[in-house]
């Protein structure tokens, strides 16, 4: 990188004069910007751990991820409650079975989560990043293990600098082993949602699972280990697109962990001899605890910035200090930028954007709810033959051909009877025998419909097909589909 610091000097000036007049002010600019550095992971951030309210909330939020590890053990109707069975294209969600045909609901689900992210960000900033994101949670657990094995941040830095010894090797290898184990458990649990947890226990260690299973477990083991053990906050800084998207969804009324600079500045170290009345300093005693506890290594006092994942650990740190020095809590607190700058805070619920988000959210929830409430065990599709669209028979009647496809989404075979109705009398051929529909399969059948010429007044009329059947336990099922009958112009 070239550092250009020289403008073209006029020839009549001495070189020394140029140096004084041009170069020195520019060098001052360098000095100004010197403190800024790109957090590119050159130095491991060893964040301090302090107890506190937000710390507890953070653990609570993290514990949601236990569902990821324990969920596959939940049973329902004799099988895994939630199982994404990709080879047989069946997705079991408790009592419901979703097939690829119902996947429009997935797009609504994705819309729901995308908007949930947007609405949460508009209201409370990167609350997902700080409390729920797997990168945050896994990194938190990994550093917790690190602290447990290696000690507090200062000891950890010393250990990093210390020459290799038997003790260092023991501690470090134990740490990496535990990290890899968590990585393995992560991959294992991920695969279990697709493979079934009990088949996985049965097949995995005996070498009977397929290559995809082993590849995914290996990928997740290594991925978790590298991302949560080594890359950590670098993922949030440089890899994560959500982090960038969420940054632009904040505005002046969004609640984020913020430093009350009107109250805190000018900051200054606490001196024992200073009289409170004559002390010109604000409430910030410049103890740097907010920086020490930050898992991404930023200084919240510099304001909202891309590195802040809004985990609120600096709030805990600052509050504990404020308690110690006898000043009110909340020098760093969840507040909007407007509030911090002493401007009237606009209630978030008056924001059009929030209502718009909520409306979309509601819409997608209603859509998913509708989808699940109308999930049927069988589905009927009717394809009208188009080549030829109709055929005239020897007696002058018109015949149309249809291909009916009956999809059985249940897990038992079914016998379906097909009937057809239309406003005029007709002859239906091909539905005399009941159709046996295997579970999880689409079974086609051809149906010919013939209508006498005298009943045909136009070139088309509606025709309704119905598939009816009964499961072995006596539950009736029924599916309907409208199609059309075509005829030449009379």
């Amino acid at each position, binding site marked *: 990188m070239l550092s250009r610091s020289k403008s073209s000097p006029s020839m009549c000036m001495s070189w020394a004069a140029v140096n004084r007049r041009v170069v020195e002010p520019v060098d001052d600019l360098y000095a100004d910007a010197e403190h800024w550095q790109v957090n590119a992971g050159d130095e491991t951030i060893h964040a301090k751990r302090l107890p506190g309210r937000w710390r507890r909330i953070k653990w609570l939020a993290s514990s949601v991820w236990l569902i990821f590890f324990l969920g596959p053990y939940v049973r329902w109707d004799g099988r895994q409650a939630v199982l994404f069975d990709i080879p047989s294209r069946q997705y079991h969600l408790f009592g419901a079975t979703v097939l690829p045909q119902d996947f429009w609901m997935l797009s609504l689900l994705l819309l729901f989560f995308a908007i949930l992210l947007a609405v949460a960000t508009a209201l409370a900033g990167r609350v997902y990043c700080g409390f729920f994101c797997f990168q945050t949670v896994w990194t938190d657990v990994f550093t917790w293990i690190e602290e447990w094995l290696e000690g507090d941040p200062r000891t950890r830095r010393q250990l990093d600098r210390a020459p290799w010894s038997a003790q260092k090797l023991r501690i470090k290898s134990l740490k990496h082993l535990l990290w890899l184990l968590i990585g393995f458990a992560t991959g294992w649990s991920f695969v279990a949602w697709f493979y079934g947890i009990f088949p996985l226990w049965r097949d995995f260690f005996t070498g009977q699972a397929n290559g995809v299973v082993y590849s995914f477990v290996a990928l997740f083991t290594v991925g978790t280990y590298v991302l949560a053990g080594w890359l950590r906050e670098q993922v949030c800084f440089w890899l994560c697109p959500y982090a960038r998207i969420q940054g632009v969804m904040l505005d002046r009324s969004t609640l984020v962990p913020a430093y009350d600079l009107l109250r805190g500045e000018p900051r200054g170290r606490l001196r024992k001899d200073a009289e409170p009345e004559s002390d010109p300093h604000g409430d910030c005693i410049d103890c740097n605890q907010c920086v020490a506890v930050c898992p991404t290594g930023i200084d919240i006092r510099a304001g909202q910035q891309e590195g802040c994942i809004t985990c609120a650990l600096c709030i805990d740190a600052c509050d504990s200090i404020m308690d110690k020095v006898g000043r009110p809590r909340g020098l760093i607190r969840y507040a909007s930028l407007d509030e911090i700058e002493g401007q009237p805070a606009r209630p978030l619920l008056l924001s059009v954007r929030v209502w718009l988000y909520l409306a979309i959210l509601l819409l997608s929830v209603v859509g998913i709810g509708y989808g699940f409430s109308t999930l049927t065990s069988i589905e009927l599709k009717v394809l009208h033959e188009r080549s030829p669209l109709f055929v005239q028979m*020897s*007696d002058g009647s018109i*015949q149309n051909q249809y291909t009916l496809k009956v999809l059985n989404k249940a897990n038992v075979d079914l016998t379906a009877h097909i009937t057809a109705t239309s406003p005029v009398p007709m002859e239906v051929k091909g539905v005399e025998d009941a159709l046996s529909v295997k579970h999880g399969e689409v079974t086609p059948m*051809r149906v010919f419909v013939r209508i006498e010429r005298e009943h045909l007044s136009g070139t088309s009329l509606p025709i309704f097909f119905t598939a009816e059947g009964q499961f072995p336990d006596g539950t009736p099922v029924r599916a309907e589909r409208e199609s059309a009958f075509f005829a030449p112009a009379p």
Partner: protein
Amino acid sequence: MADTNPFPGENNTGHFWDDNLRELKNPPPRWWMIAFWLSLAWWVLYGLLYPMWPTPPWKLDETDQEFTQGMLDWSSIKEFERGMAQVEEVRAEYDQRIAAMSAEEILDDPGLLQYTLASSKVLFGDYCAACHGSGGQGNPGYPVLADNDWLYGGTLSKIIETITGGRKGNMIAHEKILSEQEVDTLANFVVNLSKGQPGSEEAWALFRGKGCTGCHGAEATGVIATLPNGSIVTVGAANLTDTLWRFRPGGYESAKHTILYGVNQTGVEQTRNAVMPAFGGAGSAEGRLDAEQIKKLAVYVHELGGGQ
């Protein structure tokens, strides 16, 4: 280059120009470099595992160029061939069962019927659709296969016979045999029959007297006789009493044309053409389809909508 570094501790390269223009060292983070070298290593590994390196002789056209085979012995064409072999394996099982069955037995087996219809669609497209249309809807001069009007019979055995041996219609030209008046009477007679009207006594007399019954049958239904077992005897003459016309668009002019110039008459310029080639006898010089293919095609045609 300066002998001493005027900006110590600045992490520069030691190259200076004009006193203070210097080059700084700002290497990418180590993890980034590790990722960079790992991706290079992956590139080499990939090149060993998969076809990647062109091998001599060098060709200008990339599609002709030979490449290293790769240690995994994978290429998209090999994957395609493996997939096709799998498909053939699945098909072979069905085809073996079909080979052991008659066409009638296939009709009674819903699963095999489904397979037969699906797999014959290509055959039909290759050999039949050019004349009869992709869905058997026919073309001017070529019969519709999706209706229930059959010149030579619509049973499976008759359809097999038709495909195997082909058909050639024959109707003599009457332009020199009948008077204009008689042709007019007969053409009107045929039109009336197709509308479901009985036809005048005079016309029936002419129809019988001129020998039309020899091919079109006593009832003008195209049937010469019905055998005790129910099968019918035809020579391929049209059923004149139904609503369908062998030669479209149908009606008076069509009928008159056919009566005047006949079907497949040599030396008659305006005669109707109605020849279906023989598709049977695979292996022989002109043979195109084997018995299995014809059996499947017959089922397909039978199921187009009008099989008997």
